[in-house]
Protein backbone atom coordinates (compact mmCIF):
# COMPACT_ATOMS: atom_id res chain seq x y z
CA UNK A 1 0.00 0.00 0.00
CA UNK A 2 2.79 2.39 0.94
CA UNK A 3 4.72 1.64 -2.24
CA UNK A 4 1.65 2.22 -4.42
CA UNK A 5 0.79 5.43 -2.59
CA UNK A 6 4.34 6.79 -2.84
CA UNK A 7 4.51 5.73 -6.48
CA UNK A 8 1.33 7.61 -7.32
CA UNK A 9 2.42 10.73 -5.44
CA UNK A 10 5.85 10.68 -7.10
CA UNK A 11 4.25 10.23 -10.52
CA UNK A 12 2.15 13.33 -9.90
CA UNK A 13 5.26 15.26 -8.88
CA UNK A 14 3.91 15.74 -5.37
CA UNK A 15 7.02 14.37 -3.73
CA UNK A 16 10.63 13.79 -4.52
CA UNK A 17 12.21 10.51 -3.58
CA UNK A 18 15.94 10.46 -3.00
CA UNK A 19 17.69 7.11 -2.80
CA UNK A 20 18.97 6.20 0.61
CA UNK A 21 22.47 4.90 0.99
CA UNK A 22 22.78 1.15 1.31
CA UNK A 23 25.42 1.23 4.01
CA UNK A 24 24.74 1.95 7.68
CA UNK A 25 24.91 5.66 8.42
CA UNK A 26 28.10 6.76 10.14
CA UNK A 27 27.87 10.53 9.72
CA UNK A 28 28.96 11.82 13.11
CA UNK A 29 27.33 15.18 12.68
CA UNK A 30 23.98 13.52 12.05
CA UNK A 31 24.45 11.09 14.92
CA UNK A 32 25.35 13.97 17.25
CA UNK A 33 22.22 15.85 16.17
CA UNK A 34 20.06 12.78 16.83
CA UNK A 35 21.71 12.21 20.21
CA UNK A 36 21.27 15.82 21.26
CA UNK A 37 17.68 15.71 20.10
CA UNK A 38 16.88 12.56 22.02
CA UNK A 39 18.51 13.86 25.17
CA UNK A 40 16.48 17.04 24.95
CA UNK A 41 13.15 15.19 24.89
Amino acid at each position, binding site marked *: *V*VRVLLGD*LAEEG*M*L*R*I*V*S*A*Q*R*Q*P*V*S*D*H*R*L*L*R*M*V*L*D*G*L*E*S*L
Partner: protein
Amino acid sequence: MDLSRSDGAGGAGVPTTAKILIAGGFGVGKTTLVGAISEIRPLRTEEPLSDRSVGIDDTHGVGAKSTTTVAMDFGRISFQSQLVLYLFGTPGQERFWFMWDDLSVGAIGAVIMADTRRIADCFASIDYFERAGTPFIIAVNCFDGARRFEPDDIRVALTLNPDVPIAMCDARDRDSVKKVLVVLVRYVMSWSNQAGRVALG
Protein backbone atom coordinates in the same frame (compact mmCIF):
# COMPACT_ATOMS: atom_id res chain seq x y z
CA MET B 1 6.56 16.95 0.67
CA ASP B 2 10.18 16.07 0.29
CA LEU B 3 12.02 13.07 1.54
CA SER B 4 15.65 13.47 2.47
CA ARG B 5 18.06 10.64 3.04
CA SER B 6 19.90 10.05 6.28
CA ASP B 7 23.09 11.79 5.25
CA GLY B 8 22.87 14.97 7.25
CA ALA B 9 22.87 16.99 4.09
CA GLY B 10 19.33 18.28 3.98
CA GLY B 11 19.00 21.38 1.84
CA ALA B 12 17.15 24.54 2.74
CA GLY B 13 13.62 23.65 3.78
CA VAL B 14 14.27 19.94 3.56
CA PRO B 15 14.63 18.31 6.96
CA THR B 16 17.50 15.97 7.56
CA THR B 17 16.14 12.56 8.41
CA ALA B 18 17.44 9.58 10.29
CA LYS B 19 15.98 6.16 10.71
CA ILE B 20 16.09 3.61 13.51
CA LEU B 21 14.71 0.09 13.26
CA ILE B 22 12.87 -1.65 16.06
CA ALA B 23 13.16 -5.40 15.63
CA GLY B 24 12.62 -8.54 17.65
CA GLY B 25 10.40 -11.55 17.93
CA PHE B 26 6.65 -11.88 17.75
CA GLY B 27 4.82 -10.13 20.61
CA VAL B 28 7.92 -8.61 22.20
CA GLY B 29 6.58 -5.04 22.31
CA LYS B 30 7.86 -3.38 19.14
CA THR B 31 4.56 -1.71 18.32
CA THR B 32 4.20 -0.53 21.91
CA LEU B 33 7.69 0.95 21.94
CA VAL B 34 7.16 2.91 18.73
CA GLY B 35 3.84 4.19 20.04
CA ALA B 36 5.34 5.25 23.37
CA ILE B 37 7.70 7.83 21.90
CA SER B 38 6.29 8.78 18.52
CA GLU B 39 4.98 12.34 18.32
CA ILE B 40 2.40 11.27 15.78
CA ARG B 41 -0.17 8.57 16.10
CA PRO B 42 1.94 5.73 14.77
CA LEU B 43 1.10 4.13 11.48
CA ARG B 44 0.32 0.59 12.47
CA THR B 45 -0.45 -2.41 10.36
CA GLU B 46 -2.03 -4.54 13.03
CA GLU B 47 -4.36 -7.33 12.05
CA PRO B 48 -6.26 -9.70 14.32
CA LEU B 49 -4.65 -13.05 14.94
CA SER B 50 -6.89 -15.61 13.33
CA ASP B 51 -7.17 -19.36 13.64
CA ARG B 52 -5.00 -19.63 10.51
CA SER B 53 -1.99 -18.59 12.59
CA VAL B 54 -2.52 -21.46 15.01
CA GLY B 55 0.55 -23.67 14.90
CA ILE B 56 2.49 -20.98 13.01
CA ASP B 57 2.70 -18.01 15.39
CA ASP B 58 3.94 -19.13 18.78
CA THR B 59 1.77 -17.29 21.30
CA HIS B 60 3.34 -19.07 24.25
CA GLY B 61 3.93 -16.41 26.90
CA VAL B 62 1.86 -13.80 25.09
CA GLY B 63 -1.51 -15.47 25.37
CA ALA B 64 -3.34 -12.15 25.67
CA LYS B 65 -2.06 -10.95 22.30
CA SER B 66 -4.90 -10.62 19.85
CA THR B 67 -3.30 -8.71 16.94
CA THR B 68 -0.01 -8.75 15.09
CA THR B 69 1.95 -6.41 12.83
CA VAL B 70 1.80 -7.52 9.21
CA ALA B 71 3.95 -4.89 7.49
CA MET B 72 5.54 -2.33 9.78
CA ASP B 73 5.01 0.24 12.48
CA PHE B 74 5.99 3.78 11.71
CA GLY B 75 6.59 6.60 14.14
CA ARG B 76 8.21 10.01 13.97
CA ILE B 77 10.07 12.33 16.34
CA SER B 78 10.96 15.88 15.27
CA PHE B 79 13.77 17.41 17.26
CA GLN B 80 14.26 20.71 15.54
CA SER B 81 12.77 22.07 12.40
CA GLN B 82 15.61 20.50 10.44
CA LEU B 83 15.86 17.04 11.96
CA VAL B 84 13.35 14.24 11.94
CA LEU B 85 13.87 10.76 13.35
CA TYR B 86 11.78 7.96 11.93
CA LEU B 87 11.16 4.75 13.81
CA PHE B 88 10.32 1.65 11.83
CA GLY B 89 9.07 -1.38 13.68
CA THR B 90 9.63 -4.58 11.75
CA PRO B 91 7.13 -7.42 11.70
CA GLY B 92 8.25 -10.26 13.95
CA GLN B 93 7.20 -13.39 12.10
CA GLU B 94 9.46 -15.21 9.69
CA ARG B 95 6.98 -14.95 6.82
CA PHE B 96 7.33 -11.14 6.86
CA TRP B 97 11.11 -11.05 6.90
CA PHE B 98 11.23 -9.95 3.27
CA MET B 99 10.19 -6.52 4.59
CA TRP B 100 13.36 -6.16 6.60
CA ASP B 101 15.66 -5.52 3.64
CA ASP B 102 13.61 -2.53 2.55
CA LEU B 103 13.07 -1.21 6.05
CA SER B 104 16.75 -1.38 6.97
CA VAL B 105 18.05 0.67 4.05
CA GLY B 106 19.85 3.76 5.35
CA ALA B 107 19.14 3.05 9.02
CA ILE B 108 21.39 4.42 11.74
CA GLY B 109 21.04 1.17 13.64
CA ALA B 110 18.59 -1.18 15.23
CA VAL B 111 17.05 -1.88 18.59
CA ILE B 112 16.43 -5.60 19.00
CA MET B 113 13.82 -6.17 21.64
CA ALA B 114 13.95 -9.24 23.82
CA ASP B 115 11.50 -10.91 26.17
CA THR B 116 13.25 -13.04 28.77
CA ARG B 117 10.38 -15.55 28.62
CA ARG B 118 11.08 -16.10 24.91
CA ILE B 119 14.72 -15.09 24.60
CA ALA B 120 15.42 -17.29 21.58
CA ASP B 121 12.94 -15.28 19.51
CA CYS B 122 15.50 -12.54 18.96
CA PHE B 123 18.19 -14.79 17.47
CA ALA B 124 16.88 -14.22 13.96
CA SER B 125 17.11 -10.44 14.34
CA ILE B 126 20.62 -10.67 15.77
CA ASP B 127 21.71 -12.89 12.87
CA TYR B 128 20.14 -10.53 10.36
CA PHE B 129 21.78 -7.35 11.63
CA GLU B 130 25.13 -9.03 12.20
CA ARG B 131 25.11 -10.21 8.58
CA ALA B 132 24.00 -6.78 7.35
CA GLY B 133 26.73 -5.01 9.33
CA THR B 134 24.14 -2.82 11.00
CA PRO B 135 24.96 -1.80 14.58
CA PHE B 136 22.36 -2.91 17.10
CA ILE B 137 21.64 -3.04 20.79
CA ILE B 138 19.42 -5.34 22.82
CA ALA B 139 16.50 -3.81 24.70
CA VAL B 140 14.99 -6.22 27.20
CA ASN B 141 11.32 -5.38 27.63
CA CYS B 142 10.67 -6.03 31.32
CA PHE B 143 7.15 -7.44 31.23
CA ASP B 144 5.17 -7.48 34.46
CA GLY B 145 5.66 -10.82 36.14
CA ALA B 146 8.56 -11.89 33.94
CA ARG B 147 11.65 -13.15 35.71
CA ARG B 148 14.46 -10.60 35.84
CA PHE B 149 17.95 -11.50 34.62
CA GLU B 150 21.22 -9.64 34.80
CA PRO B 151 22.50 -8.19 31.51
CA ASP B 152 25.53 -10.48 31.66
CA ASP B 153 23.26 -13.53 31.83
CA ILE B 154 21.34 -12.28 28.80
CA ARG B 155 24.60 -11.62 26.96
CA VAL B 156 25.67 -15.21 27.54
CA ALA B 157 22.27 -16.57 26.52
CA LEU B 158 22.39 -14.61 23.27
CA THR B 159 26.13 -15.17 22.68
CA LEU B 160 26.60 -11.46 22.12
CA ASN B 161 29.88 -9.67 21.64
CA PRO B 162 31.00 -7.93 24.84
CA ASP B 163 30.61 -4.48 23.30
CA VAL B 164 26.92 -4.83 22.35
CA PRO B 165 24.90 -2.81 24.89
CA ILE B 166 21.98 -4.41 26.72
CA ALA B 167 19.34 -2.03 28.06
CA MET B 168 16.45 -2.90 30.34
CA CYS B 169 13.30 -1.04 29.42
CA ASP B 170 9.57 -0.71 29.71
CA ALA B 171 8.26 -0.33 26.16
CA ARG B 172 5.19 1.49 27.49
CA ASP B 173 7.22 4.23 29.14
CA ARG B 174 8.39 7.17 27.03
CA ASP B 175 11.43 7.98 29.19
CA SER B 176 12.50 4.37 29.20
CA VAL B 177 12.24 4.21 25.40
CA LYS B 178 14.14 7.47 25.09
CA LYS B 179 17.00 5.99 27.15
CA VAL B 180 17.09 2.94 24.87
CA LEU B 181 17.40 5.14 21.79
CA VAL B 182 20.13 7.20 23.45
CA VAL B 183 22.06 4.01 24.22
CA LEU B 184 21.73 2.96 20.59
CA VAL B 185 22.93 6.26 19.14
CA ARG B 186 25.88 6.45 21.56
CA TYR B 187 26.79 2.90 20.59
CA VAL B 188 26.56 3.68 16.87
CA MET B 189 28.88 6.65 17.39
CA SER B 190 31.48 4.49 19.12
CA TRP B 191 30.90 1.66 16.65
CA SER B 192 31.53 3.86 13.63
CA ASN B 193 34.64 5.31 15.32
CA GLN B 194 35.90 1.78 15.77
CA ALA B 195 35.01 0.80 12.21
CA GLY B 196 36.89 3.87 10.98
CA ARG B 197 39.94 2.88 12.99
CA VAL B 198 39.82 -0.65 11.60
CA ALA B 199 39.52 0.67 8.05
CA LEU B 200 42.44 3.03 8.56
CA GLY B 201 44.54 0.33 10.25
